[in-house]
């Protein structure tokens, strides 16, 4: 396999795409937002349970490519228990990572989400990696509408 493909499809990504975590609806969700990418037919629903400014619980459902599914799965793992402010800054850091921008010093470390660093070499796949994040962003802002990355 060429090395740059390995950079994109890191083992963690393949694993999360095959066995997505927190992949179910959330009965007591306080917010639910749908996102879709009409170009590739990807769609996602993010369920959020917010309590006292904290992401108490988060899950998702939907179908998409490996990058978008793994991204949603890892997003739910990274956000559980975080404050809304943390979530916002993770969103920004993640966006910088996959679009190849230098991270600013104030943003928090991305931890496991660093596995998406290969995406910036695949401009056509940035939308796949960010679909869940744009959907989350809308959910945090309380926009209960369908989000599109087109």
């Amino acid at each position, binding site marked *: *396999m*060429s090395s*740059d*493909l390995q950079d*994109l*499809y890191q083992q963690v990504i*393949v694993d999360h795409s*095959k066995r997505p975590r927190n992949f179910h609806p959330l009965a007591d969700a306080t917010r639910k937002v749908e996102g879709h990418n009409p*170009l*590739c*037919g*990807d*769609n996602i629903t993010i369920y959020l349970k917010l309590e006292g400014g904290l992401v108490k619980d988060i899950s998702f459902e939907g*179908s*998409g*490519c*490996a*990058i978008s*599914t793994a991204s949603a799965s890892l997003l739910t793992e990274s956000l559980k228990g975080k404050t809304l402010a943390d979530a916002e800054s993770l969103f920004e850091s993640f966006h910088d990572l996959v679009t190849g921008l230098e991270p600013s010093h104030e943003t928090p470390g991305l931890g496991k989400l660093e596995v998406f660093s290969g995406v910036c070499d*695949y401009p*056509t*796949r940035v939308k*796949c990696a960010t679909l869940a994040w744009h959907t989350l962003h809308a959910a945090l802002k309380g926009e209960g509408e369908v989000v599109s990355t087109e």
Partner: protein
Amino acid sequence: MSVRAEASALIDVARVRQDFPALQQKVHGHPLVYLDNAATTQKPRAVLDALMQFYERDCANVHRGVHLLSERATAGYEGARTTVRRFLNAGSTREIIFTRGATEGVNLVAQTWGRANVRAGDEILISALEHHSNIVPWQMLAEEKGAALRVAPIDDRGDIVVEEFEKLLGPRTRIVALSHVSNALGTINPVRELTSKAHAAGAVVLLDGAQAAPHMKVDVRALGCDFYAFSGHKVFGPTGIGALYGKEALLDAAPPYQGGGDMIRSVTFEKTVYNDLPHKFEAGTPHIAGAIGLAAALDYISGVGLDRIAAWERDLLAYGTAALSAIPGLRLIGTARQKAGVLSFTLEGVHPHDIATILDREGVAIRAGHHCAQPVMTRFGLPATSRASLAFYNTHQEIDALTGALGKVKEIFQ
């Protein structure tokens, strides 16, 4: 002689490939294997030269100047119309309208003939394997007029169910709009038979030939259709140009499409007299270079021979079908009895988008997605497929490169 040897005797593919500069390049360190021909095709040198010659030597507006360059431009543009007429075996150049592509051809018919002839309560019949370009213009017309859009179903192979099609034909069916060849599945529809059934019911027939014109001989008089639309860029010509064939009597009776220069004979503030066919439907300065480039493309493929092209592609398709079918977990979508060079497929556990990305890094260009035919995807319960689509310049070695690259996909997602 084997089937393969017979087919290769038909086309000297190595020589043909030399005519296409874009096919000589490497992508991501691999020789380009271009299998996205249903999206658009590469252009032979003859087309590039024709475009260059027009802009370097003959560039002028058409139908008005008296100077030499305008004469040359007009001769080139009207000569291109003659080439299109011959390519489609239409009876007259008055029946050939230059458009931006097949999409505009369909829209032109919907907006002119359609608006004048479709009324509330009338029906428009399409099929379940249409491209969005042969759905949306009719939906718009139906909505405007209060007409109903009817859809003939397809079976699990991707063939139109003819008995159902017949049942949907009725006294209110004004127009039947069908693709000649499906872009998503490759189905070659029995359009001659369907056209005659539609005519028997008193309906007018439009065929969307975008995916047929590059692969087979098209004879509009033998097909019997009333309108036939195709795109230049899918027949190895430039983007932004295409042609619409329409029976003279229907075009003559239809109102104009857009208003402007060239489509008029005389204009006063009180009254405008429209120009004759085909100019009535070509307002404004046309895509002169595009038409000339399109004619060069049609001359080029006619030189190779449409029958030879069809035979070569049949052989490639059979080879590709066998090779892909042998891959565990791979499912071909679209297995119609009569098929053009489209290999649409899914691979268990891997999304088409990931397949396309990995193939691209191996030099193999395919399309992943809904192929602008979302209802077809819905019919098969899929969000998307991967699609390899063939042209006569593709080779058996390129099919091998495709299957080899699919091996890489499995390696990553094992």
